[in-house]
C-alpha cells in the first residue's frame, strides 16, 4: 500500500528507501530483474573475452592482420572494406528497433502487431547468423584462417576471432529461438492473463545481443 509513496521518492533518497523500507527492494516482475542480473553476468563473460583479446594483441610481436582488408568484399569489381560487417551492424540495429516497438505494442495489448514485429526481429536475427556463417566460410576456406595459425600475421587472430564472434553468434541464435517461442505464444494469447512483461524481458535479451555487437564491432573490427 505504501508503494505509491515510496515510488515518488527519487534520487539517492529513493535508493535508500528502496533498500531499507519494509518492502521488496525492486518493484519489478521477478523475471525482468533476473534477466537484468543474467545480462550483468553475461557482460562479464564478454568483457573477459574482449580483455583477453586486448592482452593477446598487446603482447604479440607479430603484425596483427588488417581487419579492414580481411573483411572486405568485392562488389561489381569494387573493393569495399569491411562492407559485410557494416551490413551486419545495420541489420542488428534495425532488429533492435523493431523489438523495441514490439514491446510497446505488447503493453498496448496489440497481439497481432507484437507477433508481426517479433517475427520480423527473428528473421533479421536469422539473416545476421546466415551472414556470419558466410563470413566464417570465407575466412576458413578462402583465407586459410585457423584457430592456431593464419597466413596473415599474428597466430592469435584466429582463436580470438572464432571465440568472440562464435560466442556472440551463439547468443543471436539462442535469441532467435527465444523470440520465436515467445512470439508464437503471444499470438496464441498465452499471456492475456499474465500480462506482457515477458515481451519486455525478451526485448532486454535481444537489445543486449545488439549491445555486445557494438563493442565487438568497435574493438575487433575497427580498432
Amino acid at each position, binding site marked *: 500500500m505504501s508503494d505509491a509513496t515510496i515510488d515518488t521518492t527519487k534520487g539517492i533518497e529513493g535508493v535508500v528507501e528502496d533498500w531499507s523500507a519494509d518492502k521488496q527492494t*525492486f518493484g519489478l516482475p521477478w523475471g525482468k530483474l533476473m534477466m537484468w542480473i543474467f545480462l*550483468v553476468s553475461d557482460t562479464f563473460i564478454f568483457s573477459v573475452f574482449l580483455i583477453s583479446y586486448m*592482452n593477446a594483441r598487446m603482447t604479440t*610481436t607479430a603484425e596483427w592482420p588488417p581487419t579492414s582488408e580481411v573483411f572486405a568484399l568485392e562488389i561489381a569489381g569494387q573493393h569495399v572494406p*569491411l562492407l559485410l560487417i557494416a551490413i551486419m551492424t545495420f541489420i542488428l*540495429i534495425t532488429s533492435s528497433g523493431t523489438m*523495441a516497438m514490439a514491446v510497446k505494442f505488447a503493453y498496448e495489448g496489440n497481439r497481432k502487431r507484437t507477433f508481426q514485429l517479433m517475427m520480423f526481429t527473428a528473421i533479421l536475427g536469422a539473416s545476421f547468423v546466415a551472414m556470419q556463417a558466410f563470413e566464417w566460410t570465407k575466412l576458413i576456406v578462402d583465407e586459410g584462417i585457423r584457430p592456431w595459425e593464419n597466413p596473415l600475421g599474428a597466430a592469435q587472430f584466429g582463436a580470438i576471432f572464432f571465440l568472440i564472434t562464435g560466442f556472440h553468434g551463439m547468443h543471436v541464435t539462442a535469441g532467435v529461438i527465444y523470440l520465436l517461442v515467445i512470439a508464437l505464444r503471444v499470438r496464441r494469447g498465452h499471456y492475456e*492473463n499474465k500480462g506482457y512483461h515477458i515481451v519486455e524481458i525478451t526485448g532486454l535479451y535481444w537489445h*543486449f545481443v*545488439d549491445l555486445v555487437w557494438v563493442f565487438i564491432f568497435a574493438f575487433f573490427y575497427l580498432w
Partner: protein
Amino acid sequence: MSNNTELPLEPTEQQSLKQQRPQQHPIGIYLKVWVLLFVLSTLSYLVDFYQVQGYLRWTLILIFMFLKAGLIVSFFMHLVWERLSLIYTILVPTLAILVFILLMAYEADYVFNGRLFFFSQ
C-alpha cells in the same frame, strides 16, 4: 446467507504486476534512437573507410561506441526510466571491468617487453 454479495478478491500476483507501471513510451522515441544509431554506425564505419589513423581513430571509435551503447541501454532497454536502485545494481558492478582492463594492460606491457628482449637475443 448473502451469497450474492461477493467479497472483493484478494489481490493476486497477476493483479499486482498489472499495477506496476509498464514501460510505455511514444513510438517516436524508438524511431529517433534508431536513426541516431544508424548515423553513429555510419560515422564509425567512415572512420575505417577514410583510414583515419592513430589517436584520432581510437578516440572516434570509443566516442561512437559509448554513444551507441548508451542509447541502446538507456532507451531500448528503458534504463533511464527505471528506479535509481536498479540502475546502480546494474551499472556499479561493471566498474570492476575497468580495473581488470587496467591490470591486464599493465601486465601485457610487461609481457611484450619480455618478448622483445627474448627474441632479440
